[in-house]
């Protein structure tokens, strides 16, 4: 883990506690401080039940040391599919034993997570399928339940990521994406399959299953992989959040543009290599080539159809006309222009959703008044051939419910 990731990690704790964007939007108000080296803490009266048990490694038959144990309760409202709430967690000792106290009476999935081993809860999270192969444990108030968990060793996928000049692609995210997932694609976002809201996100063990990062030599190693079919994708960030650019005044312009490149070296999701995992095997040679030379830039600008003034905010998304799974997005700069770099030749549908934002004086961030005018999305089809492309000006019409006060809404 790089220092950068730790920054993110540290940030995500107060962020998650305070409810994501609110913190960023109102940077004057401090997020809840990490509750860590607080003064002496009270012990809570021992209401509720206790879960004790042992975790073992299936391959070595040894105790799983300092493995994380998670308690999950199935949510009662299943109209939109199964959902799960975190109810607590613990960590095993040197002998694989664990104790979690203060658990409310009820039925729980007790699941363990350890590097290199398959966590069934993490698999459920990753594939958006209901939790399987984890027995339900009943816990009574004031009593103790005992659970034994044996973890299966997962498969390993590793390899090297390089640019087309042969140099390493260091410090980028590498992920296995299951080819088959549940009914929804987003977790905890009103979809059919959820894991316990903000708290669930904060303490979601194994949420990084099948994810890793290349080291300085471009080498990655993903472990604990369950059997299944996957694509392997590397995500290269070509710009920094908060970057100042020649055309704009800087500041946040929405999420930074991310380039997804699938093994063995394609930006088209449809052309991605299928990595099939049957058992606990090791696949050491799944290399990815990030070929960015000879790709093209598409740029354009967004203006009002009514009076021709430039819109100063909004988003631009692009989808491959022949492969809708291949998408890109970027923001509209304050001067009304946008650009997307490193596009392979092809036909794309470009959707522009513009806005008029009140001017950012540096003082009104996070709610200084003024109004945002929203425009209707405009979609155009473009063909990128063998050169960079400047689109005709995109002309947008004010949307029906167009005006929004931004007094209290977080700015992007």
């Amino acid at each position, binding site marked *: 883990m790089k*220092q950068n990731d730790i920054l993110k990690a540290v940030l995500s704790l107060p962020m998650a506690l305070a409810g994501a964007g609110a913190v960023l939007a109102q940077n004057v108000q401090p997020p809840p401080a990490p509750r860590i080296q607080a003064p002496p803490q009270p012990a809570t009266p021992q209401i509720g039940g206790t879960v004790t048990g042992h975790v073992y490694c299936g391959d070595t038959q040894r105790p799983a040391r300092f493995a994380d144990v998670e308690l999950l309760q199935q949510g009662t409202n299943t109209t939109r599919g199964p959902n799960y709430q975190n109810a607590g967690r613990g960590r095993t000792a040197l002998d694989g034993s664990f104790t979690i106290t203060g658990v409310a009476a009820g039925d729980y999935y007790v699941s363990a997570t350890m590097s290199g081993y398959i966590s069934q809860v993490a698999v459920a999270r990753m594939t958006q399928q209901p939790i399987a192969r984890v027995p339900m444990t009943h816990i009574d108030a004031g009593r103790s339940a005992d659970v034994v968990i044996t973890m299966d060793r997962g498969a390993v996928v590793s390899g090297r990521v390089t640019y087309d000049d042969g140099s390493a692609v260091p410090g980028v995210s590498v992920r296995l994406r299951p080819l088959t997932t549940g009914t929804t694609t987003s977790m905890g976002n009103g979809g059919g399959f959820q894991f316990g809201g903000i708290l669930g996100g*904060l303490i979601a063990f194994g949420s990084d299953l099948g994810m890793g990062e290349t080291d300085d030599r471009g080498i990655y190693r993903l472990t604990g992989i369950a059997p299944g079919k996957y694509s392997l994708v590397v995500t290269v960030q070509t710009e920094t959040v908060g970057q100042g650019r020649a055309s704009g005044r800087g500041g946040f312009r929405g999420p930074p543009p991310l380039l997804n490149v699938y093994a063995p070296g394609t930006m088209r999701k449809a052309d991605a290599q299928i990595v099939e995992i049957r058992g606990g095997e090791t696949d050491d040679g799944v290399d990815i080539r990030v070929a960015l030379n000879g790709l093209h830039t598409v740029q354009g600008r967004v203006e009002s159809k009514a009076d021709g003034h430039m819109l100063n905010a909004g988003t631009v998304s692009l989808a491959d006309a022949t492969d809708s799974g291949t998408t890109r997005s970027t923001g509209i700069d304050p001067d009304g222009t946008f650009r997307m770099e490193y596009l392979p030749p092809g036909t794309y549908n470009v959707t522009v959703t513009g806005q008029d934002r009140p001017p950012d004086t540096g003082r009104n961030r996070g709610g200084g008044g003024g109004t945002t005018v929203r425009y209707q999305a405009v979609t155009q089809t473009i063909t990128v051939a063998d050169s960079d492309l400047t689109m005709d000006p995109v002309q947008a019409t004010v949307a029906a419910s167009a005006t929004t006060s931004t007094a209290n809404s977080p700015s992007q």
Partner: protein
Amino acid sequence: MRELRAAHPDRILADMPSLDRRLFFATAVLLIGTAIPHAQQPADAPGGTVSGVVTCADTQRPAHFASVTLMRVPEDRPTPAVKPMTDKETAADPAAAMKLASARMGAMTMVQARTGLDGAYSIANIPLGDYYLSATQPGYVSSLAVARAAAPPGAKGKAMYPGLTVVHVQANHTAHGDLILGRGAAVMGTVAFDDGAPAGEVTITIENVDMAKTDDDPDVAGDDAAMMMPGGFSIVAVTDDRGHFRLAGIAPGDYVMHTTLQLNANFSIRAGVMDTSTLDMASPLEFYFPAAVHKKDAGKITLTAAEERGDLNITVNLNGMHSVSGRIASAVDHHGLNEAMVELTDAADKNFTRKAVVDATGAYTISYVPSGTYTLEVPGGADTEPSKKKPGGLVNFASTHTLKSYDGASQQVIVDATDVTGVNVELKESKATTQDLDRNDE
């Protein structure tokens, strides 16, 4: 912000040596995003542009998508009229510390950008003034870190970054700043238990011996951008499932390396209310290369430029350790206190501590204590009951109402060949009742 992955809270605990530093980090990240608005002049004020090319010294190739950072030269920025807080003050009022860190960082103008595939970058609309220019790329040494390492201990202001490239930003002009990144040293090894089983997914930190000394000076740390740069003070990695690790991009110098085991990280959630009282006792255990629990016994690692070391293994031996247990009670009627922290400090190494909190009956157990002579300290205790205040936030924490407070006490404990039991401490009633602990009060 979709990218932000939920972190294991315990890993955060393990990685950050002091609360002040954690606050600094958290605030710093918030402000990387907000630094530009902070720095922004009125819309009509002219800014300047900085552009250049970043090259890798070893390959003579452009550095693809490297991070470039501009940081206002200290003497060129307004000095915040606020004194940094000590760790103790920070612990007492984390919210105030966060505000203060924010104020201090707010005075620091920092702009970040990335190079393109050709190694070139261009940053426009930069407020006028002098800036330090540095770049980072995994595996390479940040010029900021190199400059920081060359600074004498206790250096402040401009003296913190001797020799760092400075660019002068003028209105409507483009200043040029090229950088060459030098390959850093890299160390690899394995973290394993004494029986050979790998220690997977544990953090491992290598830190510069000299810089670690200035790390604890809040006056320097509060202003020091090197702290948030990869390699600025230390480099951190996590072992894989085999216990293997690789730390790269290390500047030449003398280092110590340790792994951090987070031994306890329990909490429960009932009806949406999170009880973190057991999480608060998390007491990480550090093992120094090659197999020491005390920093003074750590092996010094001397690294030269671009050196690769592949044999730096750390052994984690918990078998010779013992537990210390007992009960914290009232000196008046001998009932167990349900709120108290117990801390053991090694008499010969003040930096080595082990902690625990009492349970509802006043009993405590401190795990994994090496042989030695310790001071056992109970800073204070209390009788508490669950708070009746209804929490109404998005995320709620279990809070308590203090009924009676007790004064602290300490005593000596010797740990030798067996677990030490019956270390009971009775506390006198305090004259004043301490504040309720409301974990939802921000």
